Structure formats: C-alpha cells, structure tokens
C-alpha cells in the first residue's frame, strides 16, 4: 500500500503531491511545510555523517506505521513516497516515477522547469504505475 508521493525541486519547494491511500487530508499549506521540513532534515542528515567524504541525505525512514523512501536525482530533485512498513521494491517504484517525470513532465513544452507539475498525462501514467505495483 502506497500512501502518498511528494516531489520537491532542488530548492526544496513542493512541486507535486498526491495521496493514494485512505489518509487524512491536510491543508495545502501543511503539505508545503512538510515538504520543506523534509528538505532541511535531508540536508542536516548529510551534514551529520560520521564518515569523511560526502554522504547522501536521508534515503529511508522506518517507523511503526509507515516507511519513507527518498530518491534524489543528480539535478537535485527529490522524490519521496510514504508506504506501508513492509512494502517491497520502493526504490524501483521511485525510479519508475523518475522515468515518467522525464517523459511526461520535462518533455512537455508547456511545463516551466522548477514550477508546480500540472500535467494530465503524468497524473494518468502515475496512477497506472502505482495501481500496477499495488495489485
């Protein structure tokens, strides 16, 4: 079961968010706040690394009720999904979402980079991908 998906641009602004499970709806401002909180936690986590050399930020958070998996692209865009604690293959799903993003958002001539994603085809393909993985 996948509960929600967030996409943050390289400055930490929320550019896409959608809930899939039976989760409690929050206000738009709360989603934006959650997105930027995650961006800063991600940055601090890479700062606290006990090993020299650069560390990535948070890749996985485990809790009692959910699991959060994050994938950061080389261009700094962060995709993260919140799913059931024992959901397998979250990394592959995130790579699949990235592929959809490059195909249906970046190649969309009307999409302005770093801005809110409002592309119907992307929404459609995304819901199909997530349906496929939950079935």
């Amino acid at each position, binding site marked *: 079961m996948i509960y929600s998906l967030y996409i943050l641009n390289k400055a930490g602004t929320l550019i896409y968010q959608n809930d899939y499970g039976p989760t409690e709806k929050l206000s738009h401002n709360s989603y934006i706040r*959650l997105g930027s909180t995650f961006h800063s936690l991600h940055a601090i986590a890479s700062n606290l*690394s*006990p090993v*020299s050399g650069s*560390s990535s930020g948070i890749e996985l958070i485990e*809790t*009692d*009720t*959910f699991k959060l998996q994050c994938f950061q692209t080389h261009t700094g865009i962060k995709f993260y999904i919140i799913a059931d604690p024992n959901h397998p293959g979250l990394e592959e799903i995130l790579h699949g979402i990235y592929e959809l993003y490059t195909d249906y958002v970046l190649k969309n001539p009307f999409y302005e980079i770093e801005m809110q994603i409002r592309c119907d085809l992307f929404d459609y393909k995304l819901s199909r991908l997530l349906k496929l993985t939950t079935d």
Partner: protein
Amino acid sequence: MIYNIYIFNKDGLCVYYEEWNKRKQSVNLAEDQKLLFGMLYSLKAFISTSSPKPIDPKTGFHCFKTSTYKLHYYETLSCIKFIILTDPNTPDLREDLKKIYSSIFVEYVVKNPIYQLKSTIKFYAFVNPIKPNFKQKT
C-alpha cells in the same frame, strides 16, 4: 561497524558521548550534538504529521538511513534518548539500546547516589560495560 553513541536527557543535554570508529574529526562536538538533537526534534514532528495512521511520537520512530550511515533511535518514557550511528547495513539495534537502558543505565546511573540529575555521566561502572556490548558487533 559502530561509529558513535549519544545519550540525551530530556532537556537536550548530551549526558554521554563516545566514538569508536568515527572517521571524521568534528570541528565542534558540542555544536554537532545540538544539531543532532534539534534535527531529531523536527524529524519526530515531521513523522507524526506525515503518518497515515495515528502514531506514538516516542516509540514510533525506529531509524533512518543515508548512503554512509544509519541512525538507530530509542526513547524511554522518561524522554531519555539513546542514539547510535552505525554503517548502513547493520540490522535494527533498538533492542540493544533498550538493554543498555534497562541493564546498564538504570543500574549504574539512576541508582547511583552521587549522580546529579542533568549532569554528564563519567562513572567507570557505566562506561566499562557499554564497550564490550558493542565491541563484539564492530
């Protein structure tokens, strides 16, 4: 491989800190400890708002992972926080943290009559048993 361990009291003071295989010298240790405490504070708030189901903020959070380390977290009901940083492939260490709390911290710190609450821990009776506990895992 275990890198370091932190114990925070409920006011956010790092009462105990030890490092074993840390490969990076920190410029300012006290500053790092404060940063970690502050980060966990917001991380817990983040978790309780993004959780799809109601979650207990004290015991709900288990660990997080980056490409170079994994942070294990255990918090007691009295808000004492036990944190361990290890390499990313280590299995869950929360049971070990619980053991440190129940069999070492309670025995040698809480029951110690000269221990002043809210001060750092420097007793050999506490420090010595922790080391073999983790030596076998490193």
